[in-house]
Structures are given as structure tokens and as C-alpha cells.
């Protein structure tokens, strides 16, 4: 009977394809929404897991969090190195890790920081060792995979965060890869970590061991033609871009950000709060798209119903014949039901492929998608429910035609010539 059902579907290829397409778009859209929201949520939650507060230059708190925690946006500016010492001296602070941003290698950000950042993202070395000397770097797993960089590899960083900023390379001061991190699924996978001193040295900025005492020479005059570039580049002092803070106690969450924002020229932003705010901004769009997906699902179900209804009416003679040849009502009912289920199952599988294929295409084609850490190869249990829901839709759409055909009075149908 399955072969017969498949033959019926193949007999009307275009209608079957249209039915599959309609429901597949619905399934694909729902899976796409699920994938993008869940992956972004996880990315935001995991990425900021051990970071309670980000301190940086005044500006948009969301921008500060995105640029310093998730490495997705431009920094808000630089802050003096003295801020780091002040925070470390604050009894409410458990740890404070500085970041110096501004350069990239093939689009992957070079981050001047301290070895403790690796622990903050709970990353582990897959090969080599941590950076110790100036110009030594530890690269994230995705950087290693994308660039093919191995231990001992030399490379030259470029100004800015965009891959095409290579015309302003730091030719005189190449970096050397001394360590490669194991994959974490966190932003650190896409980072090139080095010491603060490395970043300053590359830019020819003088610095001393005493935090906050640096002075510049030789870098700021090079390639400063655009305002946007200026923002990306380091200022003339041995400044830092941001500080990632962990609280000593939960009580600090109330007092520390407020005091920084109120009493200093710095800005303090909570990653958890900003992430939630960002995701909340997407909620109406996600809900609207979900509704559209469900409406398309309804349209797909109706299309299957109309198709099967017309098919069983056109096929009354065939189905009556099956009864003559020995099929009972239940198997006739099952035949029509199976047709709906097969259409729905093919739609669900096509939708699944479509959604993951689109994610793959987007991650290959759009840097922002890759930077957001969206992977086409992640699967969620909810996808099984979406597929099961689509199959149920096909089954429900086929119920009435299936019931109708089993109610047929066979004698007059068989009498027709």
C-alpha cells in the first residue's frame, strides 16, 4: 500500500511539490526562528557567564557589552589604565581583567589582555602554552580552524576589526602563535589573545609596569584618516578599552555599577542586563515571524486537505476497487491518511534541511552571522516537536478526506462505467 501511496503522489508531482513547499516553508521558518533565538540566547548567556560587569568609556551600554564581552561591535572608546588599578583596589571586586582592542588578523580580533581571560571563559589549551612574552599569542579554536595557523606560525595584525583593513598592517612587529585553545562555543573561540604589552608594543606605545603611566610615540600618526578608524585605534596613551569585572559578592551588583556611573567618567554595564534588553528588543519580531510561520503551516494544511479531498473524489473508483480486491475500510482510511502523513513528513524534512541549509549559507556568506556564533550543525529537541507537529498537521488535514472515502457506498461507484 505504501508503494501505491507513493505512486499516487508521484502521479501528481506538481501538486505534491506545491503542498510540500508550502508546509516546508512553515517548518523551515519555525526552525530558523528556534535556531537563531536559541543560539543567540545561549551565546549571550554562555559568553557572559563569569562576567558581572563591564567598565569602559561612556556611550551605549549595549555597545560596550557587545564589543567587550561578545566582540560583536565597535568599542565605545578607551579609558585610562589607572581605572584598572582603582577597580582592583575596590573591595567589592573579585577580579578585573583589562582588554585592549583595535587590531585584527583576517577579521579575528586581537585582544590585549591577561592570561586570566582564558579562565574567565573556562577555556583550555588544546596545544602549546599561554602567552608570556610580548608578541606571543594564543588563538581560539575557530581562528585556528579558519586561518590554518599552527604553533610557531608568524602573522601580522592589521588596524581595525574588518578583514579588509589589511593595508595598515604592523609589518615590523609580527605575532607568533604559542598556544591554541580547545573549542568552547564562546566568543573566545574567535579571539587572538595576547598581552597588553604586546598591543602597546605593536603600536609603538611606551608603557611601564606601573599602570596608567604610558605615553605614545610613532603610532597615532599612521593611518588616521578616517574618523571611524580613529575610534578603533588606540589613543595616544597606553590606555585600555574595557575592563571585565567579577564581583566579590552579589551585593556589589547593586552598589558598584551605580557608583561607577555616578562618580566617574567611566561607564559600567551589566552583560546580563544588556543581553536581556537586546533579546527583548527582538521579541516582537520573533513573535510576528512565529505567527507568520504558523499561518503558513495552516495554509499548508489546508492545501493538503484540498488536494487529498479532490484526489479521493477522483480516485473513488480505484479505492472501491481496492475494497473489491480485499482491502477493508481501515486500510483504505490508512491509505489516504498515509498520503497526508508522507506529504507532511517530506515537508518537515525539507523544512529542516532548508533551515539548516540557510543557516550554513548565512554563516558562510555573512560575517555578522559567523561572528554571532550561529552554527548550522546544532540541533535542538524542539526541532523534533516541530517535525512531529508538521506530521500531525498532515494527518489532521487527511482525516476528513480519509473518513469521507470510507463512507462511500461502493455499489453505485462500481456500477459506473
Amino acid at each position, binding site marked *: *500500500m505504501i*508503494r*501505491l501511496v507513493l*505512486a*499516487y503522489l*508521484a*502521479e501528481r508531482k506538481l501538486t505534491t511539490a506545491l503542498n510540500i513547499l508550502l508546509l516546508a516553508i512553515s517548518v523551515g521558518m519555525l526552525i530558523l526562528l528556534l535556531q537563531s533565538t536559541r543560539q543567540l540566547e545561549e551565546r549571550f548567556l554562555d559568553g557572559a557567564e563569569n562576567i558581572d560587569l563591564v567598565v569602559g568609556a561612556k556611550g551605549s551600554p549595549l555597545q560596550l557589552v557587545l564589543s567587550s564581552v561578545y566582540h560583536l561591535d565597535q568599542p565605545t572608546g578607551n579609558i585610562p589604565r589607572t581605572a584598572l588599578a582603582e577597580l582592583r583596589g575596590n573591595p567589592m571586586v573579585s577580579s578585573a581583567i583589562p582588554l585592549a582592542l583595535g587590531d585584527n588578523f583576517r577579521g579575528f580580533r586581537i585582544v590585549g589582555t591577561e592570561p586570566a581571560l582564558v579562565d574567565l571563559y573556562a577555556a583550555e589549551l588544546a596545544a602549546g602554552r599561554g602567552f608570556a612574552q610580548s608578541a606571543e599569542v594564543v588563538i581560539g579554536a575557530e581562528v585556528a580552524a579558519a586561518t590554518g595557523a599552527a604553533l610557531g606560525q608568524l602573522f601580522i595584525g592589521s588596524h581595525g576589526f574588518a578583514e579588509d583593513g589589511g593595508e595598515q598592517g604592523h609589518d615590523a612587529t609580527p605575532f607568533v602563535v604559542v598556544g591554541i585553545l580547545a573549542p568552547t562555543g564562546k566568543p573566545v573561540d574567535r579571539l587572538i589573545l595576547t598581552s597588553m604589552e604586546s598591543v602597546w608594543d605593536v603600536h609603538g606605545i611606551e608603557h611601564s609596569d606601573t599602570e596608567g603611566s604610558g605615553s605614545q610615540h610613532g603610532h597615532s600618526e599612521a593611518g588616521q584618516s578616517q574618523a571611524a578608524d580613529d575610534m578603533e585605534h588606540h589613543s595616544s596613551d597606553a590606555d585600555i578599552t574595557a575592563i571585565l569585572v567579577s564581583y566579590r559578592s552579589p551585593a556589589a551588583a547593586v552598589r558598584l555599577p551605580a557608583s561607577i556611573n555616578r562618580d566617574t567618567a567611566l561607564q559600567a554595564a551589566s552583560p546580563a542586563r544588556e543581553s536581556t534588553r537586546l533579546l527583548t528588543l527582538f521579541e516582537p519580531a520573533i513573535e510576528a515571524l512565529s505567527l507568520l510561520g504558523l499561518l503558513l503551516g495552516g495554509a499548508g494544511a489546508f492545501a493538503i486537505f484540498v488536494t487529498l479531498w479532490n484526489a479521493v473524489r477522483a480516485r473513488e*473508483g*480505484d479505492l*472501491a*476497487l*481496492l*475494497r*473489491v*480486491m*480485499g*482491502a*477493508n*475500510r481501515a486500510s483504505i482510511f490508512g491509505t489516504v491518511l498515509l498520503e497526508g502523513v508522507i506529504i507532511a513528513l517530506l515537508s518537515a524534512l525539507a523544512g529542516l534541511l532548508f533551515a539548516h541549509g540557510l543557516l550554513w549559507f548565512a554563516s558562510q556568506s555573512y560575517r555578522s552571522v559567523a561572528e554571532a556564533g550561529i552554527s548550522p550543525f546544532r540541533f535542538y529537541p524542539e526541532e523534533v516537536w516541530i517535525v512531529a507537529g508538521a506530521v500531525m498537521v498532515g494527518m489532521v488535514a487527511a482525516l476528513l478526506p480519509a473518513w469521507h472515502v470510507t463512507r462511500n457506498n*461502493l*455499489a453505485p461507484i*462500481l*456500477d*459506473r*462505467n
Partner: protein
Amino acid sequence: MPRLTDATDIPDVVPALNLANIHHGYGEVSILRDFNLSMAPGQQRLLIGPSGSGKSTLINLICGFLRPDRGTIRVAGKLISEGSEATRDAVRKAHIAVVFQALRLVSAIDISANLLLAARLAGLRSSRQEALGLLTELGIADKAHARPHQLSHGEAQRAAIARALIAQPALLIADEPTSALDQTNAENVGAMLLRLAEAHGTSLLIATHDDRLRPFFPAVTELKSTVEGSAQ
């Protein structure tokens, strides 16, 4: 009104078909009244009558799609005129095959698949080889992979006969098998059905209005046109 023409009563042999005292009608119109018919296993019989004489009604009654108002119908000894639908389905599935005037080959699948579908529905595990053997017997082996619409009427009719025979029925019913054929082809089809029924040990009941088939059949049951509310 149709009435008993002849009935075969062979002691100790279960008839392939037995209709006893059948009454059936639609509202005030009586189609069959006190109708009796018995066919021994392997017997071939012509059921002849004009349009409206009740041939189709009789086929529907024998297949269990209609229930007689009175009387009993047994196929291979199994009661098909009474009982649940499942019971009647089971009797039909095991013992009856029909070649319809409209042939009703399933258009979505090829001829060999039509045969295998019939075998499966009859509960048999016939192989493609067996199907091909039957098609060879009927002279259309080269059409095994053709779709029904690619066949001539004659080929399609032979395919429909092969599909009926592969189910190994105790009773093969053919409804108007020669209606659209000229004299020569009608005689050929009649002869072919008789030969195949005999070769396969199947009882054959042909329902027709075609008098040309009469000389081929030793056993003939005549149905006459009905008149509303009464019998002729």
C-alpha cells in the same frame, strides 16, 4: 422478473457459489425475487439479461456490497450475505475476483504492480515472476512495465483478467467483458475466459447482455427486465 433457471446440486461438494431464495429490491421496485443459483467448483456460467435486469445488483450482492432483503448467499461455502462487514470483506478477499466492464486498472502503477497489489490484498505473497507468468499466459508480458493508459482496450482487458486470476479466486466474475467488442473479438474473449478459468480451476460467472456468448456456455442463467412493483 428474474427467476431460477437452473441450479446445480451436487451432494457433498461445496458449491463455489450458492444463492438461495434471494429477494432484493429498491423501494417499491423488486429486482430479484426468489432467485436461486448454484455453481459447482470449476463450473462456468453465463448470467445473461438486458440492461436493468439486475446483473449489477446480483454482482454487488455476491460481492457482499449489498445485502439481500431475504435469502442467503454463500461463496465457497462461506456466508457473505450476512454478518459483519469484516466477515463479508474476508469472504470476498479470500474467494472472489471481479473483472469490471470499466476494467479499473490502477492508473498510478504499472501492470505488474497492479497484479502484485491484487495478490497482496488477497493475502498472497505472489512474486513478480508469477505475475510475469500470468501476463505471458495472456500474451501481454511485454506490457508488464507499461502503465494502463499505454495499453489498448484489448490489452487492458487481458491485464484486468490477469489481475483477477493472480488472486486465485474460487469465483471469477466478469461484468460485460464483450460489450465494446466486435463479433470476432467477443468470441475470442469468451473463449479466453473459459480457457483460463478451466486452466486455473476457477468458477466463472459472466454477467452480460451479449447473446453472442451464449453458444460458448453450457450453463446459462437468464435475467429478464423488471417492471416496477411486480415480476414478469
